[in-house]
């Protein structure tokens, strides 16, 4: 079932000035309910502009966005409702924290939705648990926390709205490997338990390769390709041609195939690579 659909979406910045720039050109997408989509592309490729259309922060210059089959701009006064259903976590979300306690900051979104006291409380506590915020931390000031913890609080603030679609713009930027891992696992967990749709914008090919089942590649304001992760990475040569990198593993397997070893061309994670290599050896009779 399609949850999010765009039709000939166009967006132009600073129209009518010398700085005019098309940020999104003719985007037609259909995103299925429950999918985990990775969005990749250069800075300025239009991915940040695109995701801000999905929750109605930006209004398309032309074209339409459908959420559950309904044009989100059909009734302008209802646009806030769209923002509750499509949660957007910006880059460096910890810089939007403002409340006195972690609890109150996470509760900001649910409160804006007009939820009851009990429901807000339930959501705050459930989300905190989901993202690994211990309950004694809820009463602390968010400004006392470490960078990684702050980031988790900020992400929890959007998750607590329990959006049907969760969009995250580079949620791991600037963190150490462990912090990156923690946050990505929490997103995966949310995706699994809530059964929601997740769109993850990232510069890290390794990360999207590990978590996303589909990839959307943006290039020069247009959709370069939108397909399953394996299919997209099968076109690694084209991806590298537009200046994006692919995971190390893919490049290693490309070399192997160039050297005449007949091995799978859809390998993009370490785990899968290991399986394929062992399989190849078995079939070649090298492993007893």
């Amino acid at each position, binding site marked *: 079932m399609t949850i999010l659909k765009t039709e000939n979406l166009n967006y132009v910045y600073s129209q009518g000035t010398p700085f005019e720039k098309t940020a999104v050109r003719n985007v037609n997408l259909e995103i299925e309910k429950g999918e985990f989509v990775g969005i990749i592309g250069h800075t300025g490729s239009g991915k940040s502009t695109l995701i*801000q259309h999905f*929750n109605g*922060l930006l209004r398309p210059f032309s074209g339409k966005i459908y959420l559950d089959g309904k044009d989100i701009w059909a009734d302008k006064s209802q646009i*806030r409702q769209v*923002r*509750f259903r499509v*949660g*957007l*976590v*910006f880059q460096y*979300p910890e*810089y*939007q*924290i*403002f409340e006195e306690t972690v609890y109150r900051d996470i509760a*900001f*979104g649910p409160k*804006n*939705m007009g939820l009851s006291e009990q429901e807000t409380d339930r959501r705050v506590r459930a989300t905190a648990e989901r993202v690994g915020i211990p309950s004694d931390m809820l009463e602390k000031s968010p*400004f006392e926390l470490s960078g990684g913890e702050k980031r988790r609080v900020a992400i929890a*603030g*959007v998750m607590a*709205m329990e959006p049907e679609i969760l969009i995250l713009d580079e949620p791991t930027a600037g963190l150490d490997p462990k912090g990156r891992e923690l946050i990505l696992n929490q997103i995966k967990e949310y995706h699994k338990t809530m059964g929601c749709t997740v769109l993850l914008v990232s510069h890290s090919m390794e990360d999207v390769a590990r978590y996303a089942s589909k990839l959307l590649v943006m290039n020069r304001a247009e959709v370069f390709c939108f397909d399953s992760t394996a299919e997209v990475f099968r076109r690694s040569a084209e991806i590298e041609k537009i200046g994006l990198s692919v995971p190390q593993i893919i490049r290693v397997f490309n070399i192997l195939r160039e050297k005449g070893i007949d091995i799978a061309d859809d390998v993009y994670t370490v785990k899968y690579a290991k399986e394929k290599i062992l399989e190849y050896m078995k079939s070649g009779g090298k492993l007893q």
Partner: protein
Amino acid sequence: MIKDITLGQYFPGNSVVHRMDARFKLVITMLFIVMLFIGSNTIALEVGFVFTAMAYLCSSIPVKLIAKSMKPILPILALTTILNLFMITSGMPLFQWKFIAITDEAVETSVFMIVRILLLIAGTSLLTYTTSPVALTDAIERLLSPLKRFKLPVSELAMMMTIALRFIPTLIEETDKIMSAQKARGADMDGGKLKDKVKAVIPIIIPLFVSAVRRAGELATAMECRCYRGGEGRTRMRQLKSGAADYVSLAITVFFLAAVIFINAID
């Protein structure tokens, strides 16, 4: 959006005016302001107009820009005009309705004031259009440097100004970002009542303030790493050099100012 503010913006170029010594430009601008305010009749104002036009001709700044810089002051202009039109009651009435009367003198004064304010904005804008904030800060620092003797921390103040100028675009961008982020959390920015509006500002102001403090801390460390130790013993790469064009311009300005004083006197 807030990004579109042009008042006080610098447009790089290579005209005579661009190349002039910022100190002279600053002094000339001040003389120009004096010229406008002591000029009490139409002819004096015409002199001011000629002066502004000449300056713009020499600066290769497109006239379109002047119009753009006028936009933010239109409300003030409108207000003063309305006040002038209705408050001045001397002279011949041109229009009368019950107790409201508009006289010829009121119209004359209003037009005079409008032209004067427009010239003022156009002239002072030219200073910021053609002078980089850095050069301007330098000029202020150097013009004020005699005050160092009275223990006024002139170079420290100038450094503060430099940093403030540097971070204005950064903070504007940041404000935009925070606003979007809070809107994504359902914050209602266009909320109706004043009380709601004040409340809506908190989720923006606090993160902005926190971020400014953090930036300040990091910047201070970075400045220390680059051997900053206050104004003492500091040299400057850009030396302000005055040339013939500066003295000639100053002479012309003084001449115009004298002309205005003279016109006032014979009036």
